[in-house]
């Protein structure tokens, strides 16, 4: 039946003379984009056949983004622009470049998501939603509904990343205001606290109802715990479960110079992708994942020595990346524009490291992991690179662009935000 439908659609497309739809393989249907890549691919390095263009630039620290079915882009800003914290970008002439821009919302933040007729946005303490009209435009930018309030924001890991499932729930990251839950944060010789008191109200993912106003800790559910900080978060509809990208702990060498040298500390621990269900524990602060030993290792603040394993009650990551690359965006690709390999796979926007110093910094790229049936089906690879604008980046402030948010357009284009240079990129296939 599915095959018949696909064939009918293909036939219809051929009959209407459209050259934008073509079939590849037996039962897939790919849609070509109508926009052209920039001549220099916006400065990015991409796999063969892909191109990129700049959608908008000079925005004030664009964090997460959402693209509507009409192709408009909503951008959450970490720094107000003209007093506004959310931008609506519109491409009137269809060349892929935003030529109209409107701001609304008086709060800065990170979270941005469009679902079922609402735009969801987060500050560092609250989650709001704006009702959208049939064309996915915000009806009243001055009157959002407050969905969640009173979330902890104690400076470190304060961004409240959000995503929604298909059953009316919203998931909010509440990052731990600490590196490794020491009595004194980031202080050499200060022991780890067991049990870690932070985990009651932070260091995890909380689940709330997407449509109920003024929820707080009492009405939410601590869905997953033992997560130091998550900025990349996405619901995988293929597998019907939540995936998150953890920012792993810092400073193994600074705090334990006799156990870890500066080079080891630059690589460890892994930045982890976890699949989480209700009740999942990912192990922070007691363990970290060593991607070279492929083991959960007892954190040195809790008696570890870089070798002792622990964390039997904690899950293993589904993918382990090199340390400190700072995964800030996660997106499962469901579009029909990119080749079959990319279908249902994960794109991850890495913000780029700071805690590799004195080693050169790394990251500043968008990675890809192929997935089949909700599980990784191959190794991760760099998909889009060149954001930093150079190869020897000593300090993250030297990078030209730092990838942060990801979103998928209605034609299957991949959008990437950059909160350092203020650019929105769009990656297309078949330039």
């Amino acid at each position: 039946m599915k095959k018949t439908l696909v064939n009918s659609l293909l036939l219809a497309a051929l009959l209407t003379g459209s050259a934008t739809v073509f079939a590849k393989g037996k039962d897939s249907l790919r849609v070509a984009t109508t926009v052209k890549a920039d001549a220099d691919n916006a400065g990015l390095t991409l796999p063969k056949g892909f191109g990129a263009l700049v959608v908008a630039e000079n925005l004030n620290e664009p964090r997460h983004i959402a693209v509507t079915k009409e192709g408009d882009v909503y951008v959450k800003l970490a720094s107000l622009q003209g007093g506004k914290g959310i931008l609506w970008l519109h491409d009137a002439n269809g060349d892929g470049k935003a030529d109209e821009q409107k701001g609304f919302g008086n709060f800065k933040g990170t979270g941005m998501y469009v679902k079922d007729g609402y735009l969801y946005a987060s500050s560092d303490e609250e989650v709001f939603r704006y009702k959208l009209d049939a064309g996915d435009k915000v009806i009243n930018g001055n009157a959002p509904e407050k969905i969640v309030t009173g979330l902890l924001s104690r400076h470190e890991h304060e961004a409240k990343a959000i995503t929604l499932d298909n059953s009316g729930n919203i998931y909010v990251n509440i990052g731990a205001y600490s590196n490794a839950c020491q009595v004194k944060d980031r202080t050499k010789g200060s022991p780890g606290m067991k049990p870690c008191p932070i985990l009651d109200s932070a260091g995890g993912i909380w689940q709330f109802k997407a449509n109920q106003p003024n929820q707080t800790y009492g009405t939410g559910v601590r869905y997953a715990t033992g997560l130091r900080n998550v900025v990349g978060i996405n619901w995988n509809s293929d597998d019907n479960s939540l995936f998150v990208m953890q920012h792993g702990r810092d400073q193994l060498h600074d705090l334990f110079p006799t156990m870890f040298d500066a080079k080891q500390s630059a690589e460890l621990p892994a930045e982890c992708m976890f699949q989480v269900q209700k009740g999942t524990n990912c192990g922070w602060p007691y363990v970290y994942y060593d991607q070279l030993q492929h083991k959960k290792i007892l954190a040195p603040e809790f008696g570890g020595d870089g070798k002792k394993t622990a964390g039997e009650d904690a899950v293993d990551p589904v993918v382990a990346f090199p340390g400190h690359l700072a995964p800030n965006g996660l997106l499962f690709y469901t579009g029909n524009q990119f080749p079959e390999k990319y279908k249902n796979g994960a794109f991850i926007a890495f913000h780029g490291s700071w805690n590799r110093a004195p080693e050169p910094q790394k990251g500043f790229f968008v990675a890809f992991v192929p997935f089949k049936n909700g599980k990784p089906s191959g190794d991760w690879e760099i998909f889009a690179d060149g954001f930093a604008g150079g190869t020897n980046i000593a300090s993250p402030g030297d990078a030209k662009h730092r990838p942060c948010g990801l979103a998928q357009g209605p034609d299957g284009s991949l959008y990437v935000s950059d909160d350092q240079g203020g650019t929105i990129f769009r990656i297309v296939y078949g330039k």
Partner: protein
Amino acid sequence: MKKIIITTAAFCCFSLYLIARQTQTPEVQESIARGEKLYTLYCLSCHQKSGNGVPHMNPPLVKTSYVTGDIKKLVTWVLKGSTENVEIDGKSYSNNMPAQTYLKDDQIADVLTYVRNSFGNSSSAITATEVKAIRATVK
């Protein structure tokens, strides 16, 4: 004529710069050299080799009054650390800074003299005696 004035002015500026460099006594120059080693050990991973810090997380040490201003405030900051948001030029920095009480008076003097005379900064040296006096007031 205009050219001559500009050239003379530039020459004067450069000479003043050289004089300023030379006015650093050998003691201060040695303090800066020792301070650089301490900076690499204890400060660099957060504040970075360039002293530029990390956007939104670790504050820059470049031309900020926190570094080039009041000595007492600066030494106290190093000894007590910080769990507060720091705001510099409209940008806020969120990571906690550990207290560096384990550093001796002369080490704090050296590392701060280095920081106050690096990354484009040019401020007075700090002595171990000054650090000792300030440490006595820090609870």
